[in-house]
């Protein structure tokens, strides 16, 4: 190389360009990772198809528009599961290993500010969710889904649910060892899949247990989405309130306790 090639010419790229580049890379890493795709795409899709087609668990099928199908009960729950798989499980595992392998540390010395890195992660989660929701709703429509209610309420539920799960996922990734995060995030995913009103209606549990489970973010999200999409509710304030509390607690604790190395 000729003399002068390395002559200093430092400078940060414009902030929007840095965040866009970071979000694009994070999304690419996620879509390239087989285990992540299993969690975010394969499992929700299989559950939606399997439980709609085969009467494994009896579910309430009455909708705002009269008698519906199992898919009308299942789709809101599966959408909630998709949000959890990306914002919580996937993000926790990916971020945990980025922390372990010094990726967060190295990016911390780059011109991208830490809040910019977090913004990029959020953007990447949102892009992934849009792809998931597009796929899952297309499948649901093919299975005869007929949604109701206020789209704005659905959007608000999805955004608050994403905030709540992101906070909890980042709290886990930023405080536990990567292997512990991997194990715990998968275990929580499995437990909440069963006990969070995703495919099994909460009223199948005993009364006290049902009330406690109803306070979980996954239950609030799947119940809220079901209130709107199946039952035509205009704004499920109770579930939105529960998600908002989880979001504030989760993001607050993550901001306080997250360790970058």
């Amino acid at each position, binding site marked *: *190389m000729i*003399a*002068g*090639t*390395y*002559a*200093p*010419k*430092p*400078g*940060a*790229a414009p902030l929007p*360009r*840095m965040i866009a*580049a*970071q979000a694009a*890379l994070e999304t*690419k*890493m996620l879509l*390239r*990772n087989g285990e992540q795709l299993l969690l975010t795409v394969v499992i929700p899709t299989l559950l939606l198809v399997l439980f709609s087609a085969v009467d494994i668990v009896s579910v309430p099928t009455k909708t705002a528009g009269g008698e519906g199908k199992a898919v009308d009960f299942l789709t809101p729950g599966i959408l909630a599961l998709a949000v959890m798989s990306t914002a919580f499980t996937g993000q926790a595992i990916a971020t945990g*290993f*980025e922390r372990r*392998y*010094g*990726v967060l*540390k*190295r990016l*911390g*010395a*780059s*011109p*991208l*500010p830490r809040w910019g890195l977090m913004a990029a992660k959020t953007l990447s989660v949102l892009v992934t969710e849009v792809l998931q929701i597009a796929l899952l709703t297309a499948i649901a429509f093919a299975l005869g889904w007929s949604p109701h209610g206020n789209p704005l309420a659905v959007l608000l539920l999805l955004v608050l649910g994403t905030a709540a799960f992101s906070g909890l996922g980042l709290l886990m990734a930023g405080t536990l060892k990567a292997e512990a995060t991997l194990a715990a995030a998968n275990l929580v995913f499995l437990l909440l899949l069963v006990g969070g009103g995703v495919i099994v209606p909460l009223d199948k549990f005993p009364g006290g247990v049902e009330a406690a489970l109803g306070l979980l973010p996954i239950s609030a999200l799947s119940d809220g989405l079901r209130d709107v999409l199946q039952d035509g509710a205009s704004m499920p304030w109770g579930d939105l309130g529960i998600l908002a509390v989880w979001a504030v607690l989760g993001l607050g604790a993550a901001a306080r306790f997250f360790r970058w*190395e």
Partner: protein
Amino acid sequence: MGNESVVQAVGLVKRYGTKTAVDGLDLEVRAGAVTAVLGPNGAGKTTTIETCEGYRRPDAGEIRVLGLDPVRQAAALRPRIGVMLQSGGVYSGARADEMLRHVAKLHAHPLDVDALIERLGLDSCGRTTYRRLSGGQQQRLALAMAVVGRPELVFLDEPTAGLDPQARRATWSLVRDLRRDGVSVILTTHHMDEAEELADDVAIIDAGKVIARGTPEELCRGGAENTLRFTGRPGLDVASLLKALPPDSAAAELTPGAYRVSGTVDPQLLATVTSWCAQHGVMPDRISVERHTLEDVFLELTGKELRG
């Protein structure tokens, strides 16, 4: 540029729990120079570098990097420095070129990524993801990431650890080009030859303090004297040889026929010894000059081997 310093640290202290990693360290690093921070494992090299990079907040003391506080003015400092961590720093599922292009995108005027990839032989990584790259390839990628943003000051933490000789020379050659183009470089190493080969200045660290500093020549001169040895027939007149030599020299016959001259061993002294031999009809067999190395300096200063 010549008189400016890019790092000024005074009385730096950093503790981890009860362990003091850096213990009142003073360091000044010249702009435009290659400075080697030399010391055994656990001496505090990485903690010192990471304090400069803004990763560690010192428990006491003052530090300025490019005139900035590395923690409180991190946003202003980060675009101007290049950082190579001792290990890691790359997404395990990313390809080498992908990661390098990404870091380039975070900077306003990055280097030509393709040229840098070719220069460091990273084109051989192909589509392999980071976790499957060899240790040497991972090291070279980390080096490329440190320089791609065209920084003023580059920190390299053990840049050649675990590299084969060829990759090591490629790294050295890049460091020399950085220096030629006016980039200041600070590197840590526990290889003496690396410091001797590359560094304009050396700071020797032990137990969290700088115990010696200077150019490699100054450090080598400052310690024990250099030595010249030769063999000839036994019983030469050492007193006569000594008279021919400069006053600060010494000469001795160690075992019959094995002679040692110590002092300031320069071309003049060598010429004096050979002409004395010629006058006395002596063929100085196996004549050799033993230069005092940084390794010796280190051993004298600390009583420890660098790589124990």
